[in-house]
Every structure is written in structure tokens, then in C-alpha cells.
């Protein structure tokens, strides 16, 4: 009888051990360390995305809006648009940078970027639905592309042309140029913690699991 109890205890211990290890995250499968870390990104979660990427649209519909409000309070959420993907990646980046700064000027915090108040969100969703749902490819050129986003937020072309020369916009775009090195690894969307750790999207199985991983990487 004693022996039986011992076996039971042992098997419980084994299950506990296995359960414990299954929660630990491993480098290479759950995340990778960036060879070229993004500077000044301590305490941030960076999301690299592109308007021309079906999974970015899907993530921004289902996952990111639920993830961002649950992020640890000492982690700032920062979207980075990738200009090298898509025919109008450059114009997209310019408009998104202008709108992000405008959101910030209006007093929106990083947690508000998925609320209806955000101009960035409005333009982004306009591009996503045009490109992915309506299969719009803006064959008429960059002006046609810009019109989609500008109309969505009610901004004039003149206002945009003026705003995009703001040194702050230029500085932000320069920062966003680092997106390419991140996107090269496993594509977009790409989530980077503290500018150092890239989450492997194919290993994500739930929003909660993703939060756990982000929390672990944050303290690394």
C-alpha cells in the first residue's frame, strides 16, 4: 500500500515537472534574439506591420486590439510600418507616421491606438479593407493610394504634404526603417520586445500565451 502511494506521488511529481517545463519558452522556437537590436527600445513592444499583408490585417482585427490593453503597464506599444513591402509601402509609412504623431498630439496614449478615436487606426483599416477585401490595387498611382487613407481620416492632400515634412515625422520614419531587418527574419506581422526579442508568430497558440511570453521576455 505504501509503495502504491509512493508511485502515485511520484507520478504527480512527474506531471507537475512536465507541466512546469511546458510553460517555459525556448529561444529559437518561441522567440529569437535579434542580431541587430533596435536601439532605445527598452520597455517597448514593437509591432512591425504592412498594409499589404493578410496576416497583419487578421492580427489587427482579432488579436492586437485584445492584446494591447492587457500588456503590462511598464511596456509601451509602438507600431512600426514596413515601407519595403507593397507597391505603396513608402507612401503608407509617410501617412501612418503623420497620423500616429497627430494621434499623440491629440493626447492619445499607446493603449488608445486601437480605439475609434485613433486616426492611425482609421486609415489603417481603410487600407486593409480596400486592399484585402475589395482587392483594390491603386493602379492609377500613389495619389490614388493616398486618397484612400486621407479620405478615411478627413485630411487634405495639402495638409498631409505639409505635415510629412515635419522633422518629427522624418525622425519616426527613420526609426521605422529598422523594420526591414525584423521583417526579413519571419515576415510580418512581427512583435519585438525591448527591441531585442522577436516573437516567433508560428509558435503563438493564444493571446494569453502570447502575453505570457511577452512578460517573460520583458524581464530578460
Amino acid at each position, binding site marked *: 500500500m505504501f509503495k502504491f502511494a509512493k508511485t502515485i506521488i511520484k507520478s504527480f511529481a512527474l506531471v507537475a515537472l512536465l507541466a512546469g517545463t511546458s510553460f517555459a519558452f525556448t529561444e529559437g522556437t518561441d522567440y529569437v534574439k535579434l542580431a541587430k537590436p533596435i536601439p532605445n527600445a527598452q520597455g517597448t513592444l514593437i509591432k512591425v506591420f*504592412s498594409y*499589404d*499583408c*493578410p*496576416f*497583419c490585417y*487578421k*492580427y489587427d482585427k*482579432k*488579436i492586437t486590439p485584445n492584446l494591447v490593453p492587457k500588456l503590462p503597464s511598464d511596456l509601451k506599444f509602438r507600431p512600426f510600418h*514596413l515601407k*519595403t*513591402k507593397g507597391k505603396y509601402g513608402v507612401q503608407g509609412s509617410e501617412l501612418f507616421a503623420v497620423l500616429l504623431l497627430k494621434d499623440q498630439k491629440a493626447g492619445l496614449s499607446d493603449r488608445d491606438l486601437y480605439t475609434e478615436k485613433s486616426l492611425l487606426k482609421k486609415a489603417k483599416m481603410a487600407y486593409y479593407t480596400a486592399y*484585402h477585401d475589395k*482587392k483594390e*490595387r491603386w*493602379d*492609377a498611382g500613389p495619389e490614388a493610394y493616398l486618397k484612400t487613407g486621407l479620405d478615411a481620416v478627413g485630411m487634405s492632400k495639402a495638409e498631409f504634404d505639409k505635415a510629412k515634412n515635419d522633422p518629427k515625422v522624418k525622425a519616426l520614419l527613420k526609426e521605422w526603417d529598422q523594420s*526591414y531587418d525584423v*521583417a*526579413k527574419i*519571419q*515576415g*510580418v*506581422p*512581427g512583435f519585438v520586445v525591448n527591441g531585442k526579442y522577436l516573437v*516567433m*508568430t*508560428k509558435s*503563438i*497558440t*493564444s493571446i494569453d500565451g502570447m502575453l505570457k511570453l511577452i512578460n517573460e521576455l520583458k524581464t530578460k
Partner: protein
Amino acid sequence: MKLSEMIGNFRSDPIGTISQWQDKRFLWVFMAALSLFMVILAHSVFQIWLYMRPCEQCVYIRLAFFAMAFGGIVAAISPSNSGLKIVGYLFAIWGSFKGVLYSIKLNKIHHAAHSDDLFGVQGCSPEPTFPFHLPLDKWSPEWFKPTGDCGYDNPIIPDGAQLSSMQKAITDFYADGWYLWPPAHFMNMAQCTVITFGVILLALLVAAACWVVTLVRKRQAAAHVETSSYTGKLA
């Protein structure tokens, strides 16, 4: 050779018969022709004529077919030449094996892109990374540069394109993307290619195994003859 004779041979000595088949040109030419047909169909008909743009995995799949076509052509130069045939097998097996893997990945992406089950797949890469870092998309963008979105292969008709009535009808038929039978969404591109690659890979492995077994048998038979003649002399 008559068909009945072929079947008879196959039944009496399957391994030897398969080994004989892979010593002939026909199957190698057939594989190369089939592979080239698939790539040309994808490029010239679906991409150029019907505006269905290739995705990242799709251009990898093209490379896999090209590798198989190349292997088939090399082996077909002289199928009885072991050196050429080994090169042929290596390219064809490598191509069909990679093809299976690319197709499985594409099928996962296709599933995620067309459902709410997003987890478990990787994002969309801004540019392809070919095996051995071959810059194929720079050498031949029309054949190897992915211009489509991962998981989507429906026709995207440029503004102002004048479609013939035939083009209009077929692009409408494929409006939801490429399927073997589009109205029922039956068998997507990845499922069809995984079957093609899988069947060819299996055939290649069986043929290679039969070839090796036959070679070993021949060697043993030769050794047996040698030893028996040797012992015969002694006696």
C-alpha cells in the same frame, strides 16, 4: 513491348522490372515534362493570362518543379549511365521532397488566411529566401518574384485591362482563388501540389530502391559465378 507482357514481367519480378523501367528514358522524360508543364501552366496561364499572382511559397514550389525537371532531363540524356542517373535522382528527390514541405506550409497558410484560426503560421515575408540563397527573384522576377499575398491566389485584374470574354469567364470562375473545382472550393493549389510531389517522390524512392537492389543482386550473382568457377578450378 505489349502491355500484357509488361504486366507479366512485373508480376514475376517486380523489383527487376521497375529497375528496368528506370533504365529507360520514358519515365524520366515524363517526369521532366510534367514538372515543366506545371510551372509553365502556373506562370503563363494563371499568372500572366489570368492575373493570379504567385505568393512566396508558390515561387518556392516552382523552384522545386524546376529541380525535378532538371533531374529528369539529366537522367534522360542516358538513363543507363549511373553517374547521370544519380544526379537525376538527387535533383528529382530533393525537388519533390522540398515540394512536399513547401506545399504543406502553403496549405497551413491558406487555411489560416481563409479562417479565423490564425495561430500556428508564420507571417508573410517581404522577400523570398531561396535554398542556398539563390537570388532567383533578381535573376528572373517574372518567374520567381512573389507578387501575391500569402494564402491568396485569386485573380487581381489591373485597372484598365481589356479582358477577352474567355479571360473574363475564367477569372470569374476562379474569383475565390485557385481550386481544382472552384465552385465547391474543392482541393486548393497546395493540396494538389502536395499530391503531385508526394506521388512523384514515392515513385522516385521506389525506383531508386529497386535499382540499388538489382545492382546488389547482380554483384552477388557475379561474385557467386566467380567463386564457383574458382572452386571448380580447384576441384
